[in-house]
């Protein structure tokens, strides 16, 4: 079963990884992104994630469809946290199950790169002396391609 979700609750990695496991698969690769305490020596107190929810879910769904076309994988689960996150809490989990781990690694790495580029979610970093909406690094999305080099 594939799934993508947005949630304001704490994300449990194990439960995400388990839900993508079909009986014929032997490996799951899971990317777990979380709130860093320091970004370039500036201390983050907490983060806030906001999404254009219906479009974010559509884009996540597109990522899954694209990945399943390009990689030999069985199931994918993506869960992104929204709202206020404390230091160390998981912001995003992408779990990919595949018969062979090589495809799971490749697909998972491709999906987190594309998610950061295409899924309409924004992060606000809150410091002791202010806050800032983080700008994505990758510029406007073109058609996603799994052959594309990392920017």
């Amino acid at each position, binding site marked *: 079963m594939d799934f993508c979700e947005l949630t304001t609750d704490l994300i449990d990695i194990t439960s995400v990884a388990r839900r993508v496991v079909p009986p014929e698969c032997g490996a799951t690769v899971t990317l777990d992104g979380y709130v860093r305490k320091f970004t370039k020596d500036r201390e983050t107190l907490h983060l806030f994630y906001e999404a254009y929810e219906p479009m974010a879910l559509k884009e996540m769904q597109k990522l899954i469809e694209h990945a399943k076309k390009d990689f030999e994988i069985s199931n994918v689960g993506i869960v992104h946290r929204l709202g206020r996150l404390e230091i160390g809490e998981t912001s995003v989990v992408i779990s990919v199950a595949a018969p062979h781990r090589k495809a799971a690694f490749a697909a998972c790495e491709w999906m987190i790169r594309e*998610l950061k580029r295409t899924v309409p979610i924004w992060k606000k970093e809150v410091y002791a002396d202010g806050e800032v909406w983080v700008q994505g690094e990758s510029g406007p999305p073109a058609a996603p391609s799994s052959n594309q080099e990392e920017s």
Partner: protein
Amino acid sequence: MSVRVLFFGATAAAAGIRETYVEVADSSKVAAVTNLVIGHHPALEGHKLLFSVNQEYAERDACISDGDELAIFTAVSGG
């Protein structure tokens, strides 16, 4: 025609609102609607803007129809 305009993150902070409706000529493009919106919310001017129409990414020259949903935002930073 009437277009619903949404803001998120940095653009919501700059515009001071999360949502508005604008009246524009039929067959207006994203660029025209955006210029009108920036006229009302000049703090948007400094931002490199991205767009979606009905929850699909769109370019500045994309056409907009009556009842469409235009979102104006900056480069995404999820993950």
